């Protein structure tokens, strides 16, 4: 499934190994032979005339933390919304643990925990009530509801703030609360859309540490989007660099960085010593024009709005 279309550049060579779970840190979490957590094949989604997602090929392996990276407007959120059944896609384009959302939306939803890009906790409810609502709508039986909600809140360090209204929470706390809402149904796949957007550096680290702790403890698969390359480099097992609706390079952050370094050396580029960062890789695969195409007015506005709400 990682066999990419021909226009993928050479920086992706390392990514073409679709054999073996090289990347997953927690190898035990992967079910050998089991279906991929997410498989998109030639996914296309258009708003009006323009393709927001334009032939996306993507596989997320069970147990890994996969980062979908790209500038504002790259199509990350649209791709996520296709996977989460929010946008209708034709049969055969998307599979979640082998299930096609076009055939059985409810079965796919039961596998998912979803945290959208906007801050989506209900400000007029307490933290505990927010999580309890999701326990209810995922059919957690009454006798274990309270215990499950308490565990989800504890997993994100919100036990003490649990009975305060969510409108008193800081941005980082709201994100952690949303994580608890997603966790309470024991999803096999956690989907986080820009979980750290607009947060200060300390809150960002906090959110990532909780994501990691939960992943280690439960073995669930994580699909996360971000436009912060440094975070992806640090926390993701594998990343896909997305630009204009398509994944342009795929691999572990180290593979991608080394790939570019090698190539620069081979081409006899400037030996200024600094090893390439993930951002350099991105500039390399996106080519010129990245700056003028990254995000139209609408994208920047919606990103800013989220940032304001968080701040």
């Amino acid at each position, binding site marked *: 499934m990682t066999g990419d279309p021909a226009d993928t550049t050479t920086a992706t060579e390392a990514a073409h190994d679709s054999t073996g779970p090289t990347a997953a840190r927690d190898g035990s979490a992967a079910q050998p032979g089991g279906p991929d957590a997410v498989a998109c094949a030639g996914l296309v989604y258009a708003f009006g005339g323009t393709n927001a997602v334009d032939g996306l090929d993507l596989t997320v392996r069970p147990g890994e933390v996969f980062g979908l990276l790209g500038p504002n407007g790259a199509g990350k959120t649209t791709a996520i919304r296709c996977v989460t059944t929010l946008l209708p896609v034709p049969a055969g384009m998307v599979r979640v643990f082998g299930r096609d959302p076009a055939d059985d939306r409810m079965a796919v939803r*039961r596998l998912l925990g979803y945290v959208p890009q906007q801050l989506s906790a209900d400000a007029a*409810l307490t933290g505990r009530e927010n999580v309890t609502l999701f326990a*209810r709508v995922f059919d957690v039986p009454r006798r274990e509801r309270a215990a499950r909600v308490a565990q989800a809140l504890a997993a994100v360090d919100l036990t003490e703030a649990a009975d305060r209204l969510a409108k008193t929470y800081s941005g980082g706390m709201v994100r952690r609360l949303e994580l608890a809402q997603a966790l309470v149904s024991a999803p096999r796949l956690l989907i986080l859309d820009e979980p750290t957007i607009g947060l200060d550096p300390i809150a960002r680290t906090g959110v990532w540490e909780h994501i990691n702790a939960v992943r280690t403890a439960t073995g669930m698969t994580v699909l996360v989007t971000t436009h912060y390359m440094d975070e992806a480099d640090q926390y993701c097992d594998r990343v896909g660099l997305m630009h204009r609706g398509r994944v342009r390079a795929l691999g572990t952050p180290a593979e991608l960085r080394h790939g570019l370094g090698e190539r620069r050396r081979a081409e006899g580029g400037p030996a200024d010593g600094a090893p390439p960062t993930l951002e350099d890789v991105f500039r390399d695969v996106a080519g010129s024009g990245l700056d003028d195409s990254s995000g139209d007015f609408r994208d920047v506005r919606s990103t800013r709005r989220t940032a304001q709400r968080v701040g």
Partner: protein
Amino acid sequence: MSEAPVAPPSVSADPAAADGIGLLVRPPRPRAGWRLLPARVGAMCVVELQKLRHDRTELYTRAVQPALWLLIFGQTFTRIRAIPTGGTPYIDFMAPGIIAQSAMFIAIFYGIQIIWERDAGVLNKLLVTPTPRSALVTGKAFAAGVKSLIQAVVVVVIAALLGVALTWNPLRLLGVAAAVILGSAFFSCLSMTIAGIVLSRDRLMGIGQAITMPLFFGSNALYPVAVMPGWLQAVSKANPLSYQVDALRGLLLGTPAHLGADFAVLVLAAAAGITAASALLGRLAR
């Protein structure tokens, strides 16, 4: 589903596990088909009650208008006897109309809120839970009903304090509750449907404000159908609010009413509203 958890939890190593995380690796068993709808409706209604418990200001501020209607309009028109009500004091006659009006305002505004929930991502998140769209809309409709019902209780108490002779027969009050909830289910779905058509917060606010007063004045809430001009009678006949008011009047005051027809219309209207809003909800998700 019978899937085993992805991996056995490595309980000992992880700090989060100190509090126990064992339940978070076991997906809950899906509820059987027919029990899903009542469960979702219950979940949405519980949320409304929790919100009301945390913040009752809306309940009080929204009680001001009906109180003024009853106090000023009701008492004045009772005195001048301008409207033929068949012997009932005018304030008694209009009290059920005011109860229905305040419930309708709440319901229409509740439906408008769905656009806020969409913009805030709350709706998207609910749409990614195992909740069919019709169940989500039904849940929202009944949650609006619960909210309206509590508002209606406040207005009933105000009316009683102003000396309106209301029934305290529990069976009749149960009927009142049913009429309020059904009417609110319809009106909240009406604004959710409009939300699904216009898709924008500003336009929806405008339309919401534009329809509430015509719905109110184009009903039998303030005057009996008999005194209306022909065209207004036609409007009133097509207006579910009229049937709600008729039912409330019959139940609360014991005046002659067409309870069978009233409830039939209210049930049909609510069902139609839920169907229309469910069909358009997908547009809000895009």
